[in-house]
């Protein structure tokens, strides 16, 4: 007997079963643990027997926890800003280069992604350390007497994170800038605008979709970069991923760790939502060709 009766080509007529494997994987490995995490966070004691909002109240009334959240969100903003300021000129250069230089730029930008995160992070330790490359060069040149402290500082951490996240910023920017009609800057110049005016009035607004996309990706990646944060940041600086890890693994306080996760998740979602709202407003004209 024939079972299929709907017209061919109708997408909805295809069996939803095709989506089942991915759907199941999502449900089992993502939705379920998240639900479990949420369930766990709604308990007041470490053994998870007493229901209550105690963990959330504890976090939101604890200045230390709030400071960790604040510094994590701030770290993300700083890394994003660094990536934007450094990445925009790279994307700009890419669009104005010949194909050979373009390949080179892409290679350099993608290189961090092709290296293991641990290797990459240790490389930064070697570069930034007390006896690291920068310090020994500066010392041998006689520019500094005592080694500068760069490792285990916010600045060092931002540099390391910015390098790793750079592709996430540069690639969307390259796409966005590449979609801008090159005649527009010529038109602007012929109408009497100098290059700065052309950049601010034409190029920047039209590359806004790329800026928003790049910032969202960079931000989300920077604040959750557990390994880089821990190794380059060291013990003195505590960020949300490490805080969470300590609560879960060292202190075995699973409900509190779960509550941290949920709060962190929503904080990040709020910021991503903010970016995408800005993005949608920017896209109002940015998509016009």
């Amino acid at each position, binding site marked *: 007997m024939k079972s299929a009766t709907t017209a061919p080509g109708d997408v909805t007529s295809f069996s939803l079963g095709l989506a089942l494997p991915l759907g199941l994987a999502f449900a089992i490995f993502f939705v379920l643990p998240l639900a479990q995490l949420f369930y766990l966070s709604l308990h007041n004691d470490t053994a998870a027997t007493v229901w209550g909002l105690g963990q959330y109240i504890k976090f939101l009334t604890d200045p230390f926890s709030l400071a960790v959240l604040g510094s994590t969100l701030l770290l993300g903003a700083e890394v994003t800003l660094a990536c934007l300021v450094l990445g925009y000129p790279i994307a700009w250069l890419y669009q104005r280069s010949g194909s050979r230089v373009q390949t080179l730029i892409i290679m350099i930008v993608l290189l961090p992604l092709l290296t293991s995160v641990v290797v990459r992070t240790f490389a930064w330790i070697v570069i930034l350390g007390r006896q690291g490359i920068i310090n020994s060069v500066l010392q041998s040149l006689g520019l500094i007497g005592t080694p500068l402290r760069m490792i285990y500082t916010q600045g060092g951490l931002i540099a390391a994170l910015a390098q790793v996240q750079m592709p996430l910023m540069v690639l969307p920017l390259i796409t966005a800038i590449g979609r801008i009609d090159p005649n527009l800057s010529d038109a*602007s110049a012929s*109408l*009497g605008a100098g290059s700065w*005016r052309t950049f601010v009035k034409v190029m920047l*607004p*039209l590359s806004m979709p790329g800026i928003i996309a790049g910032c969202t990706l960079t931000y989300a990646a920077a604040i959750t970069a557990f390994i880089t944060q821990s190794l380059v940041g060291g013990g003195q600086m505590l960020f949300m991923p490490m805080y969470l890890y300590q609560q879960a693994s060292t202190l075995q306080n699973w409900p509190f760790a779960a509550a941290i996760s949920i709060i962190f998740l929503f904080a990040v979602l709020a910021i991503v939502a903010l970016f995408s709202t800005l993005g949608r407003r920017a896209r109002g*004209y940015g998509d*016009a060709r």
Partner: protein
Amino acid sequence: MASVSEAKSLVLDRITHRFASGTMAVSDINLDVKGGEIIALLGPSGCGKTTLLRIIAGFIGQSEGRVIIGNDVVDALPPNRRAVGIVFQNYALFPHLSISENVGYGLAARGVDKATRAKEAQRLLDMVQLGPFGERLPRQLSGGQQQRVALARALAIKPSILLLDEPFAALDKNLRLDMQIEVKRLQRMAGTTTLIVTHDQEEALSMADRVAVLSHGHLEQFGTPSEIYDQPQTLFVNSFVGTANKMKGVVVATDASGAKVALEAGGEIIARAPKPVSASDKVTVCLRPEHLTFVTDDTGFAGEIGMALPLGATVVHEIKAKDGTSIKISQARTGGTPLREAGTPVRVAPLAPGLATVFPE
């Protein structure tokens, strides 16, 4: 008109440009454009006309020669200080700015205050008959409307020279004619010296006061549309502008009025010689299809009808000459114009001796 007398002249003085790769883009171009004139730069793609336009606008610095606008040599000025208005082929309107802001952009760059800017933008939009569209975005307008906005935007800065880069190429045929008339009207109103870059000969001949024909970076001829069409100076101009039948031959004799040429297809033709030729030179004779007629005497050359094409108002016959050359002859269609059967033997000659043109090979 007062504005016309203020219009600036444009002189291209021995402009030569080589690309970084060493390719010659334009070579030794001299053009003398009077204030208020419309000039067409006509040529096939790759002839250097767009390079020339970009040199005038200042986007490319020429290798040699000078660009003189009015009394000033502008070679040292960047594009934003040349006051040259451009309408780009794709219009290049700023997609994120309203129509009114697009038109006022050049004034904003000159530090004109917002109220004056809006008023001036409105005046220009009224002039291009887009008065009510100021608040819209460019993508909400049709192609013809966008082009008028681009024109208004370029005219807003009161440019000394207006450059139009293939301005009608993106429009469909009916709209194109309307826009050509519109642009010519606006140009007359503003009195701005205008250069149109085009590969469309009809556009060039109908719009321009004078036409500069370019080929491979060389200026082939610079003259009025009728000079270009009726007295082509080179073989390229003769075959690129209008249609031309080309026939090979050898010069038999020359005199003040031209040259007598023995065609390879048999027969002899008297032709005008814009470039000097002398007896026994191998030459190419150009004959426009509308300058040929069927004859019953023994002038001209013989052939047989290949095909008859009734094209509405004209009838075109394709003729195979004795040496195999395919010749087209076009006649106005009157009530009695018969279509001739394929294979009919005929004789064809120019309507008058001066209508054939001979070029040395």
